[in-house]
């Protein structure tokens, strides 16, 4: 992302990119030394991987998501982006699951960074959804706002080029609208695409979000959009918004969670939760890690690595003598209360973007929006008659 301020003209610019010219966009990115990563099919799911051809995108496929369920099926058209978010998120590129932080060549030598900022990969993300853009800005707050800055994240983040995509359909587990993160892409992109498939001829409506986006677009065949095309594209996003059936009421969520540490319903969820950590690994905002220190066979060369970790593991809170959160109940409570409550005190907003991944990929189908509703109900039952009931959720 280039941080140049945009003049109004660029900001308003909407052009049409024909589907047959789409490959030019990838070619232009590759010419500029970007490693293009985007959605592709692997092992029965849409995952993010390196791409050089638009034919590697999952054109003509869509997904079906339910709590604890994900499957692919064919679409009636050849849409390139006609599915929701899969198990992976862009955090795997900006915040790698496993990375070496420093190395020591021999016991007497000073530790050195394993990667210098200039050697960090230069990614172009193709197909970033609105909720995912929001997730990136949430991780920006974690890694870039001090008191310390993570150089691994910073180097990747500064170089990345973002091609966003507006969603044309909402998955059954999506609730981005209620947490204010989507489905419309509004900022933080270099280029934003809306895929219009219904028209006689499919096309992308392209919006420019940065100087870098403008420069790149100049290398790709395009033409100004007509008013009709702009309106058609708007309908695409409006459809996604209107399809969304899940929601999470966030207004009083922090206060609610802060006063509900002892809510008896936590035990009920804990009875179902396997503490498998899937939810934390698929979540695009979760950022916890643990170190791994290794040495070669001679014990001369040592490395300090870090890998994603999860607050669901017993070791995570280990202090000499035992874990601080031995019960599964306390670990589920920690996860949800952090995501939706304490995150607000830490970073100023909630740590959930409503992507629904944790719902889809939970092996037992635990749905945080349902659990919050149930917690509220349990709290209301407890206080019924004594205090004013907590505001009940919509639906």
């Amino acid at each position, binding site marked *: 992302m280039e941080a140049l301020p945009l003049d109004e003209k660029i900001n308003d610019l909407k052009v049409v990119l024909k589907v047959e010219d789409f490959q030019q966009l990838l070619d232009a990115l590759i010419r500029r030394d970007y490693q293009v990563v985007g959605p592709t099919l692997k092992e029965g799911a849409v995952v993010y991987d390196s791409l050089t051809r638009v034919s590697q995108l999952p054109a003509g496929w869509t997904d079906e998501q339910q709590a604890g369920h994900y499957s692919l099926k064919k679409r009636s058209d050849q849409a390139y982006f006609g599915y929701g978010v899969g198990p992976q998120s862009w955090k795997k590129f900006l915040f790698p699951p496993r990375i070496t932080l420093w190395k020591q060549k021999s016991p007497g030598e000073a530790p050195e960074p394993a990667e210098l900022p200039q050697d960090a990969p230069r990614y172009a993300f193709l197909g970033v959804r609105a909720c995912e853009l929001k997730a990136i800005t949430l991780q920006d707050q974690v890694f870039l*706002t001090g008191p*310390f800055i993570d150089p691994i994240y910073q180097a990747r983040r500064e170089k990345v080029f973002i091609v966003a995509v507006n969603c044309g359909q909402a998955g059954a587990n999506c609730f981005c609208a209620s947490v204010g993160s989507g489905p419309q892409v509004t900022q933080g992109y270099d280029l934003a695409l809306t895929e219009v498939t219904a028209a006689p001829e499919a096309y992308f409506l392209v919006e420019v979000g940065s100087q870098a986006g403008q420069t790149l677009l100049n290398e790709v065949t395009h033409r100004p959009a007509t008013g009709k095309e702009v309106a058609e594209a708007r309908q695409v996003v409006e459809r996604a918004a209107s399809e969304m059936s899940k929601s999470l009421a966030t207004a009083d969520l922090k206060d609610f969670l802060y006063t509900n540490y002892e809510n008896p319903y936590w035990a009920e969820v804990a009875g179902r939760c396997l503490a498998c950590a899937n939810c934390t690994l698929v979540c695009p905002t979760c950022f*916890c*890690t643990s*170190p791994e220190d290794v040495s070669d066979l001679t014990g001369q060369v040592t490395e300090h690595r870090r890998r994603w970790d999860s*607050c669901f593991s017993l070791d995570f*809170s280990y202090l000499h003598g035992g874990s601080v959160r031995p019960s599964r109940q306390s670990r589920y409570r920690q996860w949800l209360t952090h995501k939706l409550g304490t995150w607000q005190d830490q970073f100023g907003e909630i740590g959930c973007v409503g992507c629904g991944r944790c719902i889809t990929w939970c092996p037992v189908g635990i749905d945080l929006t349902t659990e919050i509703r149930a917690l509220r109900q349990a709290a209301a039952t407890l206080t019924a008659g004594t205090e004013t009931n907590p505001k009940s959720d919509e639906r």
Partner: protein
Amino acid sequence: MSAEVVVNVPVQARLLEKRRESPDTFTLTLESPPSISGGKFFFAPGQFNMLGVPGLGEVPISISGDPANPKKLVHTVRAVGNITEAITATHPGACLTVRGPFGAGWPVDQTRTGSKEIIVVAGGVGLPPLRPAIYHFLANPALYPVVTLLYGARNPLDLVFKRELEQWTKRSRMRVEITVDRAGSSGWLGRVGVVTNLIGQVKFNPDRVTALVCGPEIMLRYTLMELEKRGVGPANIYVSMERNMQCGTRFCGHCQWGPYFICKDGPVFRYDHIKDWFSLQEI
């Protein structure tokens, strides 16, 4: 630490001297490395470093030396597991890795304008993190005219800084009260009982006192109760908290405690800020 610092990599520091404090606790004097932000190493009382053994890992250890003498970096480490055992087994001349200093320390500035009495309550290896503050108080008699140290350990052998405790008792203006949970067969002639008992026994003015507390969590709980019983306001009590900590830079997530990251918002907290969280279990 307010400036934004881009850092991930520790520096090496040579071990100059190792002194045994108790059967499992050692004070390590390291040659001071450059600070994390590049310049000379300096620290505030109560701050900690990530001390590491290459190939094995890092652990948070408070700085126990004199802030007025930052040329020597002093830590006091109790060997309780893998890494602390390796750290304390290191021989003088060899190097450890250091990242830091991290965290918010003791209120050595706030108390300057506030209360005129200081009471320090330490349990076990809770004394080392408090020692830099004690040095600071003793070096500034005009600001801190009345200083009391209450120190307790499980048994006489576990008391750290024995020589210094004797010096403080005999030759400093600090009032020192030491107690052990069990005297055993050590020939101990001092007090026996938990350190929290002392709070009810020593004289201080609850309206003018600032209390600094560090020790095992169970000891913290009882100490806070006793201090409140004596009428010390929660805004005049400071406690050092301990949680699993893997990075010191608020990225790893392990040290979260309610809304706080103990490595950044703590380890030292003013009690009134954390009172609600302190009463919750398993958070």
